[in-house]
């Protein structure tokens, strides 16, 4: 037989693969049918950019400034592109993008320890039922189902080490974990072996496809589909490795985003989103300013401001802001009271986050805190409210859909919470 297999012929049904994988983890009838759901959402092609500022960004030095008050600190508030909304002067460029953004100033959550808080917040702090909930990113990839990018659905760009991170997936099972690019670098074995040419690689894949085609005759297609799927994803990732090659970024972009870690990683995140990765998480560390909060925030917040504003602006210009949900947040805020080391400590009682993009109203600031910033003055929102809101923004009805954890029905987000309608389009 001549080598005429077109790779398209062997492109597997990703939806089917996902269905199989789901059946693998859940023995009972699934309440949530990813295949049906994916079909419904196919046209929307929603994506998520989740920016995690690990350690806790100070709301007073960012989204909820209280200048000239007891705990306000030295920084001023500046007007933004939306009349009436002010942010800290440490966010000068982001202020100019306010027409795209939605700030939430009335978060009130439970946990004030990092070790548990990071997990708790990113899992949406559901009721404790003895199961480990998925992080938001894993939940989204499961709920939206695969898109047509051929790229891994959930990518995590972070400093330090990378690899396949299963922890995020919780009870969804390791296949919903993230593929982490440590310091933006691709995972192990992504580079083609030096002895193997492109031509050879292509031939090998054709031989593999021939063998699988032959084996699949008369057999249920689940195994060959699943196996074919991971090979084509691997190859896709290898062929698009220029995605991770920083030398191919335009000098103008590098300048606009900044040459520091967060700037480089945000620029990489933009590329991943443009390439179609469904969920991109970007981590920045070192926000735990127990000492010298003001000098710390001066450098940290401005280093966030530059690439964040650039990215929002770029997404808006490219028309991607209608499909990408952007969230920037930490595990909690910081105490209004300044401690003896000129620092601020952990404060889950009243803090802020910023969001933008798909399904989210633009140019608004929702909720408020007391005059000195200590308590939430409007209706307090727990992280469960945010999860419901984000799911809604992505077109997922989080009140009527349930997870199926091996027959155990579980709410997508905390059942005592609801979507915040004033944040939604």
């Amino acid at each position, binding site marked *: *037989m*001549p*080598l005429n297999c077109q790779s398209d012929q062997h492109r597997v049904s990703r939806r089917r693969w996902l269905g199989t*994988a789901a059946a*693998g983890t859940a*023995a009972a009838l699934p309440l949530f049918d990813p295949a049906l759901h994916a079909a419904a959402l196919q046209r929307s092609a929603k994506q998520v950019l989740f920016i995690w500022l690990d350690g806790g960004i100070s709301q007073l030095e960012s989204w909820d400034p209280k200048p000239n008050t007891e705990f306000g600190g030295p920084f001023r508030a500046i007007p933004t592109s939306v009349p009436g909304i002010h942010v800290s002067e440490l966010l000068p460029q982001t202020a100019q993008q306010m027409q795209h953004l939605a700030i939430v100033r009335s978060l009130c959550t439970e946990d004030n320890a990092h*070790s548990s808080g990071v997990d708790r917040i990113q899992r949406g702090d559901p009721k404790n039922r*003895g199961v480990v909930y998925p992080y938001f990113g894993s939940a989204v990839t499961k709920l939206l189902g695969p898109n047509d990018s051929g790229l*891994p659905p959930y990518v995590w760009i972070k400093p330090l080490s990378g690899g*396949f991170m*299963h922890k995020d997936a919780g009870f969804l099972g*390791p*296949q919903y974990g993230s*593929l982490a690019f440590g310091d933006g670098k691709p*995972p*192990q*074995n*992504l*580079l*083609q*072996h030096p*002895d*193997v040419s492109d031509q*050879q*690689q292509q*031939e*090998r*894949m*054709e*031989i*593999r496809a*021939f*063998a*699988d085609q*032959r*084996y*699949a*005759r*008369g*057999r*249920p*297609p689940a*195994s*060959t589909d*699943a*196996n*074919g*799927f*991971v*090979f084509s*994803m*691997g*190859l896709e*990732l*290898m062929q698009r490795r220029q995605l991770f090659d920083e030398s191919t970024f335009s000098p103008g972009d590098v300048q606009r985003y900044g040459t520091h870690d967060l700037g480089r990683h945000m620029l990489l995140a933009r590329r991943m989103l443009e390439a179609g990765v469904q969920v991109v998480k970007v981590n920045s560390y070192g926000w735990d300013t127990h000492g010298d909060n003001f000098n710390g925030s001066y450098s940290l917040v401005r280093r966030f401001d530059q690439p964040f504003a650039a990215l929002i602006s770029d997404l808006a210009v490219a028309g991607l802001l209608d499909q990408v949900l952007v969230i920037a947040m930490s595990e909690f805020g910081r105490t209004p009271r300044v401690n003896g080391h000129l620092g601020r400590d952990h404060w889950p009682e009243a803090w802020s986050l910023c969001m933008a993009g798909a399904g989210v109203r633009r140019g608004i600031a929702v909720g408020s805190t007391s005059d000195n910033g200590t308590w939430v003055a409007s209706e307090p929102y727990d992280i469960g409210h945010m999860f419901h809101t984000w799911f809604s923004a992505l077109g997922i009805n989080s009140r009527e859909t349930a997870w199926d954890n*091996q027959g155990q029905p579980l709410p997508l987000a905390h059942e005592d919470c609801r979507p915040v309608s004033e944040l939604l389009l």
Partner: protein
Amino acid sequence: MSGFWRNSACSGSSLLCLLRQCLPLLAVGCWCCDCVSVTADELAQRIDSLLQQSFTSAQAEPGPVSDDGEFCRRVTLDLIGRIPAASELAAFLGHPDPQRRVLLVDQLLSSPEHSRRMADLFHVMLMERRGDHPEWLGFLRTSFAGQKPWDQLVREILDPQETPEQIRGAAWFITRRLEKVGQQDTDYPGLTRDIGRLFLGCDLQCAQCHDHLTISDYRQIEFQGLYTVYRNTSIRKDVKFPAVAEQPLTKKTDFMSVFEKQSLTVGPRVPFGVEQEIPQYESGQEFAVAPDRATNFPGVPKFRGLQLIAQSLPVSANRRFAENLANRLWFVMFGTGLVNPLDQLHDDNSATHPEVLAAVADAVTAAGFRIQPILRELALSQAYQRSSAGAASERVLYQYGREKRLSAEQLLASVLMACGDGDLMAAGDSLSEAEQKRAESFVKAFGNIPGEPELEFSPSLKAALFVLNDPLLQEQLQPGGGNLSERLAAIADNGAVAEQLYRSVLSRVPDAEEVEFVSDYLGQRADARRQAIGNLIWGLLASTEFCLNH
């Protein structure tokens, strides 16, 4: 201890049988094997007649019997953990004896590679990729080499002893789970849960906090009675080998359901068994061997909960213990449990074929918990020997053979067998450092994450990238040392290359279409024949057919 279970004992009333029950550590075979093996011998037939009933009532026919090649690959992978060498396959296919399948099964079961395979299999099943430890692996290998019965093996795990030296590694089952991870508390609930899951087929997770809401058998007391004993343990610090310390158990555990705020207590108790009294000693009199602060020796209490559990959980009177082994051995051979999930044995989750489960569990008990005779019977059943080709038209369970995931260990051994010089590896040889690294890389690429049981075939991007690009696989394709690549390169006739290639890698003869494919490809790549041969080997190694037992 006899108060734990109604003493139905094993089916024989022989003295040795009773002795084995009373003196659990007495390492002797059951002499009633003779009378008992009659039962075991009948198991294959019994399974087939029961399954035939399910076919008949569904008006379905069983699928065709596997051909000899399909059977040889399947049973070799299952019983000795690798594909057959091309020479072994040829010998089997050419064997004139009509009983050659029985002979093959017996030959595989008596091979030293079988005990290694069993050690690997149970290592993965019991430790669920939490790493490994030389003493633990040594314990498993010695145990399976000596055909230790499952009840004895479990007893040694549940109440590990520091002597004799060959079995002290059993403690690692507990000590590995007691290791602290970060700032989290020692995971006593996890250890308790794993004992229920792995030895009784009962996941009592929900029962930690309340009676299970939907499973009536899983009450909170089932979890708490076992937890009472195991949360009293710690890792011994005074010795270098894995060893468990036990504090004196002086009082019952208080617990309360998260739903009904009512205080309850329980003493040591095997799940679904009878609670045991805790004998009271005067302060200072609790120890049979006193602790020694100077050496950090934790002492040995007079009343030991571990001993109590070890003497009363893994016994034939505990039906769930036998059913769990029956279900897990069935899973090993058939790729699915009679009860699924494997750790959800309870009255509301009946087996797909309850009589089959009962028959296998009876045989397990009758065989004195020896694993080999059960595997033998399962392998000799018609159900096991059905072809998996055509499974797309399966209407009734077990009409066709089923696909089974290969472990990282099976994959590595099979890659080496397929690509190597065709010589049989000597089992039990210790690994060089490079071989050890290679084995670890395979586990990293193909194993599940720690704590996650390896059940169904679940290809991953990580594994695909490993197969695509890792030097460890590429080096197998380089011709040299009489390996497959070199041998194939020396053959001029393309049809003969195809024949050798398929026999070595996929353990079967290629059909006409495949011979044509290989010949055409080699014809087109005459300029780079060696490279093309490497590509062919790679293509088959990466195929789903190679990656599965089917």
